Structure formats: structure tokens, C-alpha cells
């Protein structure tokens, strides 16, 4: 009896504590940490979008950075040279174009499964990488530096200033909460249930009459659009974009975040983003060859902890509760 209601309550307490901590964080910490946590929250949105694919639809995409990069480039390309772009115009454009690109790629990739899916998503992501790297559209490997941050003016009023790190922090925080609630609602809807059904048994879903192809394509498109949102926010925070945003390292890192936090739980994606940035900060403070340490950590993680850090947490919890 205890166990049936104690878990949700505990989860809720932790959630409220984390939200409160995040809400007050910028008033306590230095600007450096405010910006770092902003970066973590942007990556958390990115990881959440991938979790919809990997954790809930069973599609392991190794090319998710393409849509992140497209979202970022939309802001870079739409920002005029001598004035600021408008947030309320460019943000929907970034989401729409990233979603459109994901839809176009999705038409091809959701036809294939398993290992093919991994290779084909990577190949298409690389195609976008070359598109921005080699053609005039993306202005080459240096990318685009934006002279102005977008303004949030709407109807003559500017509710917040995106040149201010604290304001950016709270804007990103609000977007993260919205994305989280959106995905939670989506996953509890009949559509989300069907996706999870496809993940556990695609043949059964098909024989039950579900149009599996369309469901997968919809999931791929939504995930791409949300990744584009995260990419847009990253461009907004740092003020420049380059092709590395679309690189396959980025796709690998976001998969790593999911594994660190545990796939198939929305909290896990956010925890994973935090763990990844923490690893990155600690390792890069030790050596410039920190990717060696990161690589070795990944290998050790897979060999010794099948199931990720989440499995350790789960084991720990089971032992505590008994």
C-alpha cells in the first residue's frame, strides 16, 4: 500500500525542489554559472527531443544534431547585419524549418529499421553538414556571427531583454518547462501510447491497424522541430553558429546524455544533460585532450554498466525501498 502512492509523491517533491532551485539559482550564483546552467537547460531540451525518438518510439537516431543545427542557422541567417531580428518571428520559423527538414528526411528514414536507421540518419545529417559547410548558404566553416541578439518586442512592448544573461536564463527555463509539459501530455495521449506500442511491438501495432509509418514520421518530425527549438536557443545564447552544431559529434553527445540519464524517462534526459556538461567541465579542466577521458568513460560505462547510470540509481532505490 505504501509503495503504490509513495513513489509519485517522492518524485513530485524532488521535482518541486529542483524547479525551485532552478528558479532561484541566478540570484545566488555568479554570471558564469547562470550561463552554464542556461547551456545545460538548452541541452536538456535537445535531449528531451531525442528521447521522444529513442526512448518512446524506439528509433535510435544518430543524426539528431542536423535539426538542432538547422534551428540555430535559421536565427543566424535571419538576423540582419545592422539590426536585431524579432524573437516572435524567428523562433517559430526555426521550429517550422527544422520540423520541415525532419519531415523530409523522415519520409526516407522511417522506412528502414534498426541498424539501417542509425546509418541512414547519420548519412542524412552529414548531408546537411556539408550543405552548410560547403555552400554559400552557410557561409563556410567559420559560420555566422550575429551582431545583435534578437529582441522580444511584441505589440510595441518588450517584456524581457535577450541581451541580459539572467533574462535569457529565465526564458530558456520557461521553454524547458513548456517542452517538458508538452511531451508529457503528448506521451499520455492516445498518440503517445501508440508510439510506445510501436516501440515495444511494431508488428502487433501494425496488425491492430495502426498506420505505423505515419506515427513514426510524426514522431520524427516533432522530435526534429523540438531539436530545432533547442538549436535556436543555443544560437541565441552564444550569438554565433557554425557547421559543428550539425556535426556527428553533437549527435553522439546527445545520445550519450540520454544514456547517462536513462532513456524513456523525461527526467532522465534532463539529468543526462546535466551529467554530460559536468563531465565536460571537469575533464576539460584536467587536460586539453579531455575527449580521451570522455571516450574512455563512455567505453567503461557500456562495458560495466549495461543500462546506464539510471540502472545504478534504480538498483540503489530498490535496495532502499526493499
Amino acid at each position, binding site marked *: 500500500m505504501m509503495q503504490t502512492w509513495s513513489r509519485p509523491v517522492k518524485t513530485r517533491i524532488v521535482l518541486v525542489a529542483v524547479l525551485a532551485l532552478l528558479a532561484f539559482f541566478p540570484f545566488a550564483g555568479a554570471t558564469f554559472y547562470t550561463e552554464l546552467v542556461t547551456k545545460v537547460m538548452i541541452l536538456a531540451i535537445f535531449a528531451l527531443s531525442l528521447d521522444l525518438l529513442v526512448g518512446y518510439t524506439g528509433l535510435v537516431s544518430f543524426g539528431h544534431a542536423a535539426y538542432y543545427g538547422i534551428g540555430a542557422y535559421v536565427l543566424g541567417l535571419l538576423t540582419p547585419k545592422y539590426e536585431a531580428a524579432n524573437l516572435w518571428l524567428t523562433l517559430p520559423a526555426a521550429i517550422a524549418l527544422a520540423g520541415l527538414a525532419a519531415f523530409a528526411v523522415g519520409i526516407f528514414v522511417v522506412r528502414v529499421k534498426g541498424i539501417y536507421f542509425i546509418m541512414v540518419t547519420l548519412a542524412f545529417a552529414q548531408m546537411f553538414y556539408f550543405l552548410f559547410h560547403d555552400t554559400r548558404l552557410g557561409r563556410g566553416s567559420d559560420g555566422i556571427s550575429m551582431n545583435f541578439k534578437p529582441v522580444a518586442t511584441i505589440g510595441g512592448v518588450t517584456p524581457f531583454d535577450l541581451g541580459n544573461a539572467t533574462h535569457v536564463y529565465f526564458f530558456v527555463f520557461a521553454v524547458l518547462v513548456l517542452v517538458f509539459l508538452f511531451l508529457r501530455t503528448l506521451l499520455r495521449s492516445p498518440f503517445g501510447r501508440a508510439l510506445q506500442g510501436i516501440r515495444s511491438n511494431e508488428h502487433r501495432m501494425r496488425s491492430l491497424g495502426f498506420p505505423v509509418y505515419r506515427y513514426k514520421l510524426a514522431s520524427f518530425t516533432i522530435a526534429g522541430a523540438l531539436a530545432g527549438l533547442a538549436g535556436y536557443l543555443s544560437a541565441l545564447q552564444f550569438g554565433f553558429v557554425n557547421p559543428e552544431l550539425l556535426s556527428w559529434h553533437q549527435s553522439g553527445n546527445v*545520445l550519450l546524455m540520454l544514456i547517462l540519464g536513462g532513456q524513456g524517462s523525461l527526467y532522465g534526459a534532463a539529468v543526462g544533460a546535466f551529467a554530460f556538461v559536468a563531465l565536460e567541465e571537469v575533464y576539460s579542466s584536467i587536460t586539453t585532450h579531455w*575527449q580521451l577521458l570522455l571516450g574512455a568513460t563512455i567505453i567503461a560505462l557500456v562495458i560495466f554498466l549495461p543500462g546506464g547510470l539510471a540502472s545504478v540509481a534504480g538498483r540503489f532505490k530498490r535496495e532502499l525501498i526493499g
Partner: protein
Amino acid sequence: MDIHSFLIQLLNGLQYGLLLFLVASGLTLIFGIMGIINLAHGSFYMIGAYMAFSLSALTGSLLTAIVVGIVLSVALGVVLEWALFSHLYKRDHLEQVLLTYGLILVFEELRSLIVGNDVHGVAVPAIFNWSIPLTATLSYPVYRLFMSAVCIVLAVLLYLLISKTRIGMMIRAGASNREMVASLGLNINLVYRLVFALGVALAAFAGMLAAPVSSVYPGMGTSVLIICFVVVVIGGIGSVWGALVASLLIGLADTFGKVLLPEAAGVTVYLLMAAILLWRPEGLFRRV
């Protein structure tokens, strides 16, 4: 395009395709037989090229470097299979992707630590360092012909190994039913180790062979890896014959794409892949 420059592009396309085949055949075999997606396969190509550079600087001869390099890469394959990949057979694709992604990071950083991040050239061996004149201004380098010839010989040997020998029979049996082979008393783990070492050696050899032509640079492994994924997707996973046909197709599409449509050069092969996916999602050839 006149007939001579067409011929040159044709030979270049075939040579590039054959080189891709050496890397892609290992990738497709490792997947087809061991069920493992190996992102680090491109790193073996990179390691081969850097071995050609370092060892030929050390020994003064590319041919010696290649012989030593093959021995080292077989050893690397055996050690990696024993230490890491043997843990992956029963894991899902996501974990395989992660582990091999971690391996790429390790290999790239080790390369950066040991050799640095500069671009290096490797000299063409003296006996191949001449060209066949085609017209007054155009000629074709003999080393590229030598590369193609070596690749063709290796492709034939690979075919004979898989379809005509006892080892090949065990490899094919292992691909279709691992438990059955093991219960018949054959050492399936040894077969896997051999296949993996063969794949590593083929990729590293391709890198060594290509070093004098493409030069040696960071990131060379990744670009080859992704093109090889395209090859495997087009050819059909697990099919060596499919890998050969798809490699040649990609080699020609990329070479002629660069000449005819220079603006879209980076994108041609991916468009080809997209078209094949619409037409045949399983690739041109199903598993042999």
C-alpha cells in the same frame, strides 16, 4: 568532356570505389556475421594511413611500412575484439553505437597526442612514381592503377575465402546461426575474432594504400566511415557482393558529380542513397 578526360575520371571513380570497398566490406561483414554496428571502423582506415606515414618515415619504405602495418592492425583487431567487442554481441544497437563512438574519441585523441593535428604527405614508392601519357598534356599516374589492381586482387581473394574455403564455410554458418555452429563443436568465438581482425586489417590496409594519394589528415576516418555507411545501405547489410557494386556506384557518382555538378558535389552520394531507399529500402542486394 573529351574521351581522355572521361577515361581519367572513369579510372579515378573506379579506383575510389574499389578503395571504399576494402573498408565497406569489413564493415558489412562485421555487421552481417557478428551483428555489430561499428562506428569506429573509419578509425581503422585513419590508423592505417597514419601507420603508413609514421612507419615509412621510420623504415624509409612504404612497402615495409605496409607489411608491418598489416601485422599491427591484425593484432589491434584481435585485441579489440577480445577486450571490447566480445562484450557487445548480446547488447542492443544503442550500446554498440555508444561504445564505438567512445572508441572514435579515444583513437582521435591518441592520434592527436602521438602524431599531432597537422596534414602530412606520404611519398609514392619510386617504382610506381611515373605516369602513362594519354595525350600531350594528359597522363595517368601508375600508382593509382596499382591501387586499383591490388583492390581487385583482394576482392577476388575475399570472394574465394568466403565461398570456397573451410573457414569461409564457418563464417557463413556463423552468420546464419551462431548457436547451431557452437553446438556442432566449432569455435564460433574464434571465427568472430578472425572476421573482426580481417575487417580491421582491410580498413587499415585501405588507409595505407590511400595515404600517398589522399595525404594523411585528422578526420579522414570519419568521412570514410559515413561514405561506407552509404555504401552498406545501398548494397544491403551483410552482402559483400552488394558492397562491391555499391562502392563502385558511389565512387563513380562522387567522381562524376564533382566534375559535372561541382556545386552539389558534397550532396550527390546522399541523393543517390535517398533514391535507392525509396526504390529498395533493404538495399540492392539482400544478404548472401
